[in-house]
């Protein structure tokens, strides 16, 4: 009986260490920014457009990720073919690739010197536009959603889907009325992770979309720019981004429970 508590306290210590490691930089950020520089920083001309752009592009990216990623995640959760393993590996590839590599890859795909430009012609000048920002975010963040959503769908019992069918639901209706709501908490967590990843996206955006205030300069890029002009400013922007991210992550975890409560 002695062992159990000591094993338990070691576990607590390890967990505590990790939490401290994760939270410490944020606390340092908070301490290093005084309230005066906070209000000055938030009224800087770089901040407003970058915040609006970040919210708008990540919202669009999230919609695209959920709309395109949900059917894929469902297929991944149900299929047992060998092709599934391959698709799964391909989908997760962007997680292990440095974002800068993805940015270069996107330029090679859609850029003026792109691999496909002789075939499809100039693709309407996608690079260095807001569309490019959204594409970069989708590519970088979608794997987090697809992976999480597929795991959430795997928890949905297939005999439960059979029951829905026997009660008159077509496969599509059964998916919408049973699989999605039953997996909703998991889907929301996956979506919030993807959203957070899109919000923090920097490397692929810088290379593929550029860094133009009001057009392609998202909050992380504004932080990068501010770091070159005024370190204090960068600290304030970072704090705003961290606060925003924390708030929305929390919201997306509380929301599914509220929705359930209403039903």
């Amino acid at each position, binding site marked *: 009986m002695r062992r159990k508590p000591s094993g338990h306290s070691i576990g607590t210590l390890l967990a505590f260490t990790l939490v401290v490691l994760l939270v410490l930089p944020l606390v340092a950020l908070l301490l290093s920014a005084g309230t005066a520089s906070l209000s000055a920083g938030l009224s800087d001309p770089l901040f407003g*457009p970058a915040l*609006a*752009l970040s*919210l*708008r592009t990540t*919202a669009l990216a999230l919609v695209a990720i959920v709309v395109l990623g949900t059917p894929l995640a469902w297929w991944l959760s149900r299929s047992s073919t060998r092709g599934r393993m391959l698709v799964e590996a391909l989908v997760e590839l962007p997680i292990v690739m440095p974002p800068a590599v993805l940015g270069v890859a996107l*330029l090679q795909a859609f*850029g*003026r*010197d792109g691999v496909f430009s002789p075939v499809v012609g100039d693709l309407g*000048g996608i*690079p*260095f536009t807001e569309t490019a920002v959204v594409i970069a975010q989708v590519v970088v963040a979608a794997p987090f959603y697809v992976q999480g959503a597929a795991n959430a769908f795997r928890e949905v019992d297939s005999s439960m889907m059979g029951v829905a069918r026997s009660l008159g639901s077509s496969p599509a209706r059964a998916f919408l009325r049973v699989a999605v709501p039953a997996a909703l908490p998991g889907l929301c967590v996956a979506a919030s992770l993807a959203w957070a990843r899109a919000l923090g996206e920097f490397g692929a955006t*810088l*290379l593929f979309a*550029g*860094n*133009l*205030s*009001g*057009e392609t*300069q998202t909050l992380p890029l504004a932080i990068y*720019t501010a*770091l*070159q*002009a*005024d*370190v*204090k400013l*960068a600290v304030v922007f970072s704090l705003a981004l961290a606060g925003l991210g924390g708030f929305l992550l929390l919201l997306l975890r509380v929301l599914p429970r509220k929705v359930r409560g209403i039903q």
Partner: protein
Amino acid sequence: MRVRSAGALLGLLFVGACGNPRGGAQPVVVFAAASLMEAFSGLEQAYEERFSDRDVRLSFAGSHVLRMQVEQGARVDLLATADLRHLDSLQARGLASPPVPFAVNRLAVVVNEEGLEHIQNLEDLLNLDRIVLGSAEVPVGQYARQMLSLCGDELASGVMGRVVSFEDSARLVRAKVELGEAQAAVIYQSDLVGSRGIRGIRIPEHCRVSPVYGISLAQTARTEAAEDFLELLRSDVGLEILRGHGFEEVP
């Protein structure tokens, strides 16, 4: 109710972003080296005061990143870099006009308070153990190497051995010294204007390097508005702004 107000806020964001505050005219897009940040922001203000119906958009990064973006099809009107090499290569590919030199800068060796305790002159850099330079791809890094080799091989190799990081632009180099991560760095004299807690040390005459800044019209430029910007840059007003931020006139 909460849902509706959230929707309204979202709608506002979208509309706010799509509406052009300056009545639909295409903005003049200027890509500029990081070290030009404050000077060009001043120029932007002067330009928009003179042409109240026009809008200037600035993007700052290391010169090599800007060049890469232009090569990959970024729509841009003007491109200003801290050396002429990147502009020459863009011109050779037909992507930009021949570069026009518009300002001269000087290299500066800077130290923060910690570094200041150990240093009297350039040779004392060898008393330090955390120095930051620009990477070999960016002008500030190339000029720094050039300056060090002018000062002598011993100092050059000694300094290179004490470098803890090669940064991507002059401003990222400066930020490292300001944050105390490095004790000393080589940046531009213009970067000292508006910096916090760092000081330049005297550089002997024989190892001075004076970078020449160039600007080109991009192939994608809408020439009239862009040429107006170029004209302003080279006018007395422009020179005054450049001087105010630590730059010098092209001889």
